[in-house]
Structure formats: structure tokens, C-alpha cells
């Protein structure tokens, strides 16, 4: 092939020269070029190496169906492999290189695979599971393990940079009345018709320019069309590919926002992932020209016929000098004429006996009843052997010297989007292609995607498509009809493969995966005859290609082998995406710090300003510890825990769930939800409550405060806040619809701080307008009071203790949280108090044997947790029936909450340690340690967890704590979980 830019053809802007870099050499192109057209203009023949055999590959098409020119764009972190050179617009400074080759595409050591191809036939990697005959050594997994590394290393096209993607991506949503995919003659006609009726129309075009196949028509003016459509109010989305069609006219699109320019900032996303919901979708996605399988049909210089027309009329590139066109249909004759006018010598091989065409240039030599047999050449085409179409088996009858072979084996409507909806394509024997099947969904196929070949009929189908959409929407009663499929003057003749009459042919069906006609025959011999098996065994139609190029040829070969017709063999289902979608576009802005939304408490910044080290707790970030003077985590939390026990500490507990429960039936509701009695909770009092699931297992624990006769504030654990809120709403909406109760999450409304320690009362008093409100007599344990801070800011104070010390929690409107913390912190410091974080909070509660999510893990009953006394026997509540079933209540050997000490007090242990009997250290043992801490008060490590039969069974027995993850074992003893102040004197002080 010797391709070159020529004058008087093309629509590129020759006033704007663009320099680019291919394989580390600089070249020039023009504004309006694609990388492919620029490479062709520079007579670059080899642009890649094939997947398995590393055969040289050139540019084979001019669109998204490209299988040969898959290249890598950019370098370093901007490196982007497997980009189709035919879709990549040229821009100043573009860097591109070929791939799947070492050291480069022109000289590739991997080409040795071409000579070893007999070992790489279809399914060769499946056979590596089976051992190597004749010895069959290492059969099964071990042989696969041996080969796997080699196969995986060799597999794949292109290489990722393995650096973080520097570009930004985003998602977007839109809505419209009618969305039209494709701006060919049919799509434009549909858009005009619909917009004319004042409908909100979006026209989607994957190319940078509107027009579809018309862009390759000299007289077509894309800018004029654009302005006309815009004037009608049509919303144009160019450089946007509709990659998937989903339920209810939801369509997924990828907009390439900056892929056509060099852009190294993040202000504009590189790509935009659109989800558009339309009332009706019209698909004018066009059709794809097919190849013909014959020997060496992949040598650089082989291309589809229509591609050559586009390169000539759009880009001003004549792709060959001596061109042979092989065909079985009428569509090539116009292109042959154009190529001839541009100066090429053209010979047409038409498999048909004769054709009758108007206005065809009689100077072009047409060889009827002739088919391509084999291309001669390896890195470029030297000549083509031809065969008699009527003489099978085929054999060479002549040879034609040429530098390019253009092929047209017929056209396949791009029915992919409709196929995404599960609509099966129907075989059309007249036009030798699959046509879109019928659908009841609001989707209309138009143009050549409907199998209509000539332009005037495509336009008519576009208008009919718009009327069909309006008819479905109830907006039009105008009669309409779709032109009949087809439209050529002479019928197409079946021609899928010209079988090579010698062994070891390279007759490609699917170029991208190096699937040959012989591979299809091998699949048939080995029993993989269903189309789905054929696809998976040979990889026919996988990856980028998605059946665009080779599907029909593969099916026809299989049909021939099975002695069936193509429709009997069937076709595979096309699935999204139609063209590849980058992972970055799928992620959108949900990357880096926005990988998930961060939830912070109102005191977040205050905590940071006061030295907090934060820890992720679900979506929240909470203070973990407040180190002083470079303290470690352990040093810090032990100091904080000690300070709380001796004096006073303040902790941000805002993350607790908070739910307002209001209404005349609020008491009845809450009494049904909790296992313990709430019916008689006085106003101004709070109570600890346990709620069970329907199956009797503990769901969550928390407190509820009675604010007034008909209003409560419920608190939940941080982890279960959302679940409990949903649960309460479900109960009210589905089970107890008669109850007059409103529940509202007020977790964000209230900030909360726990002030704990023997000095807590004194510290808080100084913060209040009326200090007497929290005197012991006015606010006893589990009491609640509304108060004002010194400056008059209202707050709620509840006397409650998670630490086991005298303790209060102050709740305040979130916007006042920082001011409250300033006030409290000032007073707490007067008592040498401290700020404490989640680690100290955990240590304090483990010392007291209080359970949290680590213990209430969805397996624990209320008895298991040692809270059986809170299960009322006098009322019915959620879980009350199921908790008494035999497997829960009668099993005395269930795991029960206990405390653990190491026998050797210098030993440490970790959460997750399995508790076992001595000499029976195996499996899941007899229990587990769920939470551990160093207890400053006891001076050694402690833990809580569960053991079968509870404390009574194992008291005075040494057990083994087995930690297989850390390869650790230690002797442990079972103690009461309530290790500090078991009588609760401190919190009642």
C-alpha cells in the first residue's frame, strides 16, 4: 500500500498543520484528521501487531469497528492503550505508538508466534489444563499453574501505565422527549421532523462531525446541517457514543470531552458518563461493512471499501495506487469510481455473474465471478491471487499486482443497542444480514440500522421513525410507513469465505483476536457448535470488536459445517458497552477523597484544632485519640482513660443515631419496639433499651428519653442508626398503621458530648445558667433535663454513663457545638481533665463490660449478652415470640458474654482470638474474644467476648486464647464482664 494525501479531495483544514508523534518520530497532519488518516497520509503501513500471532496489522476501517489499528495514546500517567486510531482525532502534540510488539511494530520478536501458530489454535489455553501429550505429565491444576503465568503475561493488548489517572471524569444526567442515536441521513431527518413538532430532541453522534456516512459525500456540508438542527432547537451531542440501552428508555453515553485536545488540567473532565432518560429512542446507528475470509486477508493494506471512500473524501487521503476491490454487492461501485477519479488504478472482483448499474465508469476493470484467494506479501501487499467463484474447491487462476485490497462482503446493521434490550435480530436472506427484531419498547430503528441501504429511503425511514415515536407518545396520528429493507439494484450474493486450498491458511474471521476460519472448524470438530460456545472457545467477537466485524462470517462457517442455515445457528447477544468505556468514566468523581462521602460531626474541625487523630468509623471520621507530646496511641488512650477515671474527660459522641418519636401513640410504639418496659417511663427520665429483630436476635441497644407526654428522643448506636430508623418507619408503614406516630431522624440536628468522670458534675455546673439543675437530687442517674448554657444557648442534658463513671451527655443544636465545646473544655481543664477519643471510650466500656457492635453482631440473643433481665415477660414486643424458641432459650450451652484476663498478666491478646479448651485447640473453639484493651485501673490487658456456657461453666478453669492469624497462643481465664465497679456506685454518685 502506498497511501498519500492528494489535492482537491477531503474536508480537512489544510491551513492548520498539526504535528504529532508516532513511534517516537514526528509527523504532520491537518486539523480534521484522525490519527488513522494522518498515519495513512504519511504512508505508515504497520500500526500494530495482532493478538496471538503478532502479525503486522494496518488500518482496516475508518470507524469504531477498527480491529487493526489499536494503538496507545499518550505516555506516563496519560498512557491510554487500545485506542482505535480511526476514532482518535489528531491534535497538536499527540503522542501515539503501536502495541503488542517488542521492540516496535515494524520489528517484533513476538512474530515468532506466527510460525508456531499450530500450537496457538482456538482453545489452546483450555488444553493446558489437560497435560501435555504423549506424557500427560502434570495434568490438571498443576500444569495450568505452570502455564498460567506465561499465558497471562502474553495475553492482553497494550499496557497500562500503572500510575494514577491524572484526568477527571464526571457523571451527568439529562432528559428529553426523543433521543436519536446517529446523525446519518436517517437520524438527521428524524431530528428535523421531531424538532419541527416542538419536541425536545437530543441527537447523539459518536463522531466529531454530524452526517454519518454522508460526511464522505463531497457535497455534504456538516456545518450547515449543524446550524439548521440547532436552529430547530435540537440538542446536539457530538463526540458522544451511545454504549448501552437499558430499561424504560434509559441510555448510557460516553462523551469524549477533551480526548481531541491536549488538556492537562482538571477543570474540565476528560470524559463524561451520561445517563439520559428519554420518552422514546430512535436508533439510526448505521451499518458496518463486512470483510471476506480468505488467505492472508490481514496483510497491511487490506481495508473495507467504504473506509477508502471516507479517507479520500473526508481526509483527502488516497489509500492505494493499484487497488483491487473484492465484493459481492453493489455498494463498492461508487467508491471505485471515486478512487479512479483520484488517480488510482482500480480492479473490481465481483463474485456475481453480472451486475447492471447506472452511471458506472466503464473504464474500471470488473472481473465477474471472481473472488480473492490469497494475498501475497507479509508486511505489505505485493499482489493478490484470485480464484473462479464458481469452481470449488477454490484455486488460484490468476494473480494481480496491487498495493491495496479493499473488501466488501456485505453490510451488517448495527443492531447492538436493540440487542441490549434482549431483542433478537432476524436473519434477512435477501440482504444477507441480521435485521433488528420487533420490540414493544419505545425504540424505533431507522436508516441502515434497519437494513435500508439507499440514502433517500434512509431519509424516509428517519421521518417515519419520528412519526412512529410521536405516535407512541400519543402526539401524532399521521400515517407513516418505513421503506423496505435493501435497496441495491442487484442482489447480494453470499460470500463469507474463500477457502484456501492448502494447509495452514491464515484466513481471518475476527482480526482482533486472530480467530481464523480454521479455528471455527476446530471448534466444530471439538463440539463447540452452539454460537455461545463458539464465541467463548475461539474468542470470536469478544473485546473491542464485540462481533462488529467477524460475527456473520463465523456464523456462516458454522452453519456450513452443520449443514444448516445461518438463522438456525443463531447469533450471540450483544451486551453493553458497544464501544469500550474507561474505568475512570464509570467512577466519575467518586475517586480519591470523594471515593465515598465523608461524614463529620459538627465538632470535627474543633477536634482537629485540639489535636485529634481521626479514625474512619463507617462514613464518619471520629477522634481516635488526642496525643500529647508525641504520645503513641497506647500512651495516649491509657492517659485519657486514667484521667476520666480520676477526674473528668470530654468526648464527641455526636455520631450516635438520634430519632425523634412523636405522637399520641409514641409510648405504645416505643413499648412495642423495645424488649424492656417503657410504658411507664416518667417525663424527664431516660431508659436503656434493647430492641430485637423479629427472629429474637438483638438488633441494637440505646436509650430513649421521654421529653413530654407524647415525645421521645431515641438514641441508637452509630453503626445501626440508619437501620433502626428504616426499621421504625417500616413498622409504622406496614404493621402498625393504626398508630399515630411520626419518626424523624434528628441525628444531624443534635451535637452531643459525653462528659465523664468524678469531676464531671462540677465541671458542667460552671457551664450552665442554672448549675443546680444537675445536682444529684435534681438530676439523678438516668435523668434528663432541658437547660441553658451560660450564654443562654438551650441544651439537653442526660445523666448517663458509658464509662461507668459519673457521667453526662449534653446535646445541643449542631451549629452551637463548637461554642459548647469551648465552654466545656475551658472548665474541664480546670480539673486537669482531658479530651478523649474512641480508643479510650472503648477501653472504658470494656472495663465495664458494656456491649457494642463488636458484641451485638447479629448472632447474639439478649440472654447471650447477659441482659436477659431486660426481656419483659409481661408484654408483647418485636422478637418476643421468637426469642423463646427452643434453639435459643433451651440451649444452655450457647455462648454467653464474659470477661477475659490473661493468666500471665504480662500477656496481651487481640480481638478475634478464639477461645479453646486446653488440648482442644481447633476450629472455632468454644468462644471468641470480641473486644480488648489495656486496663489502666487493673494494670493488665482485659477482654470481653463470648464462651459456651458462660462464666459459671469455666470459672477457675484455664482456657487457651488461640490467635491463628497472628500465630499466638496464651492462657486465659474467664471472669465477669463487669470488671470495674460492678455495683455501679460511681455512676450513681
Amino acid at each position, binding site marked *: 500500500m502506498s497511501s498519500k494525501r492528494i489535492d482537491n479531495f477531503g474536508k480537512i483544514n489544510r491551513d492548520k498543520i498539526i504535528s504529532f508523534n508516532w513511534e517516537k518520530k514526528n509527523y504532520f497532519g491537518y486539523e480534521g484528521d484522525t490519527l488513522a488518516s494522518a498515519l495513512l497520509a504519511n504512508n505508515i503501513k504497520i500500526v500494530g501487531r495482532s493478538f496471538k500471532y503478532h502479525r503486522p496489522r494496518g488500518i482496516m476501517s475508518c470507524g469504531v469497528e477498527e480491529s487493526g489499528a489499536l494503538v496507545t495514546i499518550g505516555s506516563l500517567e496519560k498512557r491510554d492503550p487500545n485506542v482505535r486510531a480511526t476514532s482518535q482525532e489528531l491534535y497538536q502534540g499527540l503522542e501515539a505508538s503501536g502495541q503488542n510488539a517488542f521492540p516496535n511494530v515494524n520489528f517484533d520478536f513476538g512474530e515468532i508466534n506466527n510460525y508456531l501458530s499450530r500450537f496457538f489454535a482456538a482453545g489452546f489455553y483450555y488444553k493446558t489444563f489437560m497435560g501435555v501429550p504423549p506424557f500427560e505429565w502434570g495434568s490438571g491444576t498443576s500444569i495450568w499453574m505452570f502455564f498460567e503465568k506465561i499465558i497471562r503475561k502474553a495475553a492482553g493488548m497494550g499496557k497500562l501505565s500503572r500510575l494514577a489517572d491524572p484526568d*477527571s471524569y*464526571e*457523571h*451527568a*444526567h*439529562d*432528559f428529553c422527549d426523543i433521543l436519536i442515536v446517529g446523525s446519518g441521513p436517517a437520524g438527521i431527518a428524524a431530528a428535523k421532523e421531531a424538532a419541527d413538532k416542538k419536541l*425536545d430532541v437530543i441527537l447523539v453522534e459518536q463522531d466529531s462531525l454530524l452526517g454519518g456516512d454522508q460526511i464522505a459525500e463531497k457535497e455534504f456540508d456538516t456545518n450547515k446541517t449543524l446550524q439548521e438542527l440547532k436552529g430547530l432547537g435540537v440538542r446536539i451531542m457530538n463526540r458522544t457514543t451511545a454504549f448501552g440501552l437499558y430499561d424504560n428508555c434509559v441510555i448510557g453515553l460516553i462523551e469524549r470531552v477533551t480526548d481531541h485536545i491536549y488538556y492537562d488540567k*482538571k*477543570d*474540565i*473532565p476528560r470524559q463524561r458518563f451520561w*445517563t439520559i*432518560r428519554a420518552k422514546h429512542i430512535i436508533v439510526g446507528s448505521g451499518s458496518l461493512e463486512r470483510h471476506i475470509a480468505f488467505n492472508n486477508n490481514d496483510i497491511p493494506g487490506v481495508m473495507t471499501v467504504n473506509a477508502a471512500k471516507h479517507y479520500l473524501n473526508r481526509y483527502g487521503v488516497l489509500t492505494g495506487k493499484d487497488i483491487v476491490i473484492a465484493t459481492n454487492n453493489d455498494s463498492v461501485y461508487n467508491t471505485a469510481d471515486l478512487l479512479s477519479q483520484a488517480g488510482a488504478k482500480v480492479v473490481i472482483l465481483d463474485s456475481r455473474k453480472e451486475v447492471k448499474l447506472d452511471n458506472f465508469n466503464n473504464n474500471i476493470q470488473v472481473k465477474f465471478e471472481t473472488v480473492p484467494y490469497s494475498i501475497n506479501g507479509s508486511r505489505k501487499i505485493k499482489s493478490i491471487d484470485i480464484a473462479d467463484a464458481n469452481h470449488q474447491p477454490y484455486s488460484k487462476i490468476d494473480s494481480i499486482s496491487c498495493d491495496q485490497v479493499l473488501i466488501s462482503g456485505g453490510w451488517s446493521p448495527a443492531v447492538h443497542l436493540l440487542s441490549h434490550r434482549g431483542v433478537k435480530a432476524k436473519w434477512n436472506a435477501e440482504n444477507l444480514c441480521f435485521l433488528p427484531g420487533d420490540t414493544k419498547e419505545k425504540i424505533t430503528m431507522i436508516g441502515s440500522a434497519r437494513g435500508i441501504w439507499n440514502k433517500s429511503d434512509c431519509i424516509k425511514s428517519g421521518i417515519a421513525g419520528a412519526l412512529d415515536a410521536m405516535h407512541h407518545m400519543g402526539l401524532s396520528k399521521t400515517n407513516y410507513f418505513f421503506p423496505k429493507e435493501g435497496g441495491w439494484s442487484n442482489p447480494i450474493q453470499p460470500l463469507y469465505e474463500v477457502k484456501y486450498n492448502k494447509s495452514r491458511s491464515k484466513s481471518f474471521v475476527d482480526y482482533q483476536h486472530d480467530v481464523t476460519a480454521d479455528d471455527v472448524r476446530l471448534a466444530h470438530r471439538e463440539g463447540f457448535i452452539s454460537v455461545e460456545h463458539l464465541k467463548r472457545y475461539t474468542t470470536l467477537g469478544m473485546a473491542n470488536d464485540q462481533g462488529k466485524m467477524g460475527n456473520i462470517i463465523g456464523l456462516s462457517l458454522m452453519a456450513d459445517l452443520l449443514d444448516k442455515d445461518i438463522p438456525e445457528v443463531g447469533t450471540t447477544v450483544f451486551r453493553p458497552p458497544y464501544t469500550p468505556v474507561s474505568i475512570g468514566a464509570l467512577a466519575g*468523581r*467518586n475517586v480519591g*477523597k*470523594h471515593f*465515598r*462521602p*465523608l*461524614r*463529620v*460531626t*459538627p465538632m*470535627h*474541625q474543633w477536634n482537629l484544632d485540639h489535636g485529634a487523630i481521626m479514625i474512619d468509623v463507617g462514613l*464518619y471520621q471520629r477522634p481516635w485519640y488526642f496525643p500529647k507530646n508525641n504520645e503513641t496511641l497506647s500512651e495516649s488512650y491509657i492517659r485519657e482513660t486514667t484521667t476520666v477515671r480520676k477526674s473528668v474527660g470530654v468526648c464527641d459522641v455526636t455520631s450516635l443515631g438520634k430519632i*425523634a418519636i*412523636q*405522637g*399520641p401513640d409514641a409510648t405504645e410504639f416505643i413499648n412495642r419496639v423495645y424488649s424492656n418496659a417503657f410504658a411507664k417511663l416518667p417525663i424527664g427520665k431516660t431508659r436503656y433499651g434493647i430492641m430485637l429483630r423479629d427472629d429474637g436476635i438483638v438488633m441494637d441497644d440505646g436509650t430513649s428519653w421521654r421529653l413530654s407526654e*407524647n*415525645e421521645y428522643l431515641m438514641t441508637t448506636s452509630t453503626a445501626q442508626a440508619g437501620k433502626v430508623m428504616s426499621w421504625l418507619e417500616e413498622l409504622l408503614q406496614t404493621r402498625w398503621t393504626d398508630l*399515630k406516630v*411520626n419518626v*424523624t431522624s*434528628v*441525628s*444531624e*440536628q*443534635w451535637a452531643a458530648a459525653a462528659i465523664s468522670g468524678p469531676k464531671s458534675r462540677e465541671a458542667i455546673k460552671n457551664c450552665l445558667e442554672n448549675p443546680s439543675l444537675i445536682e444529684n437530687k435534681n438530676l439523678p442517674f438516668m435523668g434528663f433535663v432541658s437547660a441553658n*448554657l451560660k*450564654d*443562654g*444557648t438551650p441544651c439537653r442534658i442526660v445523666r448517663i454513663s458509658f464509662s461507668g463513671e459519673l457521667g453526662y451527655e449534653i446535646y445541643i*443544636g*449542631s*451549629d*452551637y*457545638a*463548637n*461554642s*459548647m465545646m469551648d465552654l466545656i473544655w475551658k472548665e474541664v481543664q480546670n480539673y486537669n481533665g482531658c479530651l478523649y477519643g474512641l480508643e479510650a471510650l472503648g477501653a472504658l466500656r470494656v472495663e465495664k463490660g458494656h456491649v457494642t457492635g463488636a458484641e451485638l453482631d447479629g448472632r447474639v440473643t439478649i440472654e447471650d449478652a447477659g441482659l436477659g433481665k431486660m426481656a419483659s415477660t409481661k408484654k408483647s414486643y418485636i422478637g418476643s415470640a421468637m426469642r423463646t424458641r427452643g434453639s435459643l432459650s433451651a440451649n444452655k450451652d450457647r455462648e454467653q458474654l464474659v470477661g477475659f484476663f490473661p493468666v500471665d498478666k504480662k500477656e496481651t491478646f487481640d480481638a478475634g482470638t478464639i477461645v479453646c479448651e486446653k488440648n482442644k485447640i481447633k476450629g472455632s473453639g468454644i468462644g471468641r474474644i470480641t473486644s480488648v484493651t489495656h486496663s489502666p485501673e487493673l494494670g493488665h490487658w482485659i477482654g470481653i467476648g463470648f464462651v459456651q456456657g458462660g462464666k459459671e461453666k469455666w470459672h477457675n478453669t484455664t482456657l487457651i486464647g488461640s490467635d491463628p492469624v497472628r500465630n499466638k497462643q496464651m492462657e486465659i481465664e474467664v471472669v465477669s464482664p463487669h470488671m470495674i465497679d460492678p455495683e455501679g456506685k460511681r455512676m450513681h454518685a
Partner: protein
Amino acid sequence: MHNRHSALDSNYFPGDYPFNNETNISFKEYNNINIKQISCWPEALEKAESFLKKELELPYVPQFNKGIVEKKFSLWRIEPLKWWAIDKEINFSEELGTTLEISHSFTCISISGENATLLLNRHLPLDLRSINFSECSSASSAIHHVSIKLLKYSDNNYHLFIPRGFGLSIWEILLETAKQFGYKILER
């Protein structure tokens, strides 16, 4: 009483942030907003509507997902039996329903300007075209998995309510998205 502190305090910097010398979106936080949530019992709906009409001197009571904007306050029916009274003190009797103070629960950001709708649709799967989402419409949806409420005051003029704890995170992601349009942050 102390001044109220906003969730955005650490990252609210008024000024112009143009793109190609243009600012097509304006952000403004309403950081002292007062919200009363009033919910009525199903059987008391008619009475509740009469009460609201009379008490607030309204020409009509908005339908579900609609609002009414008065000079000094607005009323939004954010659920079939639930309204938000913004900057207006109002209480339901127990016979009618319940009243709840939720002023601190949300971060309220006004988003206005030529590209406000485009910006919102970068995140919200809502049909915000005027024909579907007219003035004084409201909707509940989610931005980046966080539930939000959107009130439309006029064309390209919205108030976005984000749960306070997520306010900062969503604010940051909105600003990142708005860079491509050019934006300004107005004084609160």
C-alpha cells in the same frame, strides 16, 4: 446565645472563580436558616391545610413536592403529609399532627446562575427542565449517595439542602464540578 457555626466554615471562601473569564454559577450558603417540620395525621390533612392557609395567610396550600414563597418565609410540602416552614414559626396541635425543629439538621446552599441546572444535573438524576420542574417545585434525591432535598425558587435558582454532617463533603464535590462553568461564592 452563641453565633451559629456552619458545616462549611472551614471551606467557605467568598470570591470569583472564573473559567475562561466567566462565572456562570453563584453559590451562597444560608447559614442561619430556620426550618420547622410539620407533619399531619392522614385523617387531619384537610384541617391541616385549612390551618396553614389561615395561619400563614396563604392564597393556597402547596401540593406535594411544591412550595409557596412569600416575602419573608416559604412553605414546602416535601412529603404528602409533611411540610417545611422555612424562616417561619408555626406549630401543629396534637390533633393535627406534630412539629419538629430541624434548623440545624441541614446545610442549605443557594445555587443560581445560567448553568445552575447543568451543574445540578451533573449529580442529580432529576428532570429539572422547566416543563417538568417548574418554579416552586421540590424534590428529594441523592448526590454522591447522600440524600438531599432540592427546592426551586425560580429558573436556575435552587436551594439545596444537605444533611449537615455531609455538607462539607458535598460542598467540595460541587465546587469541583463547578470549575468547568466558572463560579462565584457569595458572602453569607
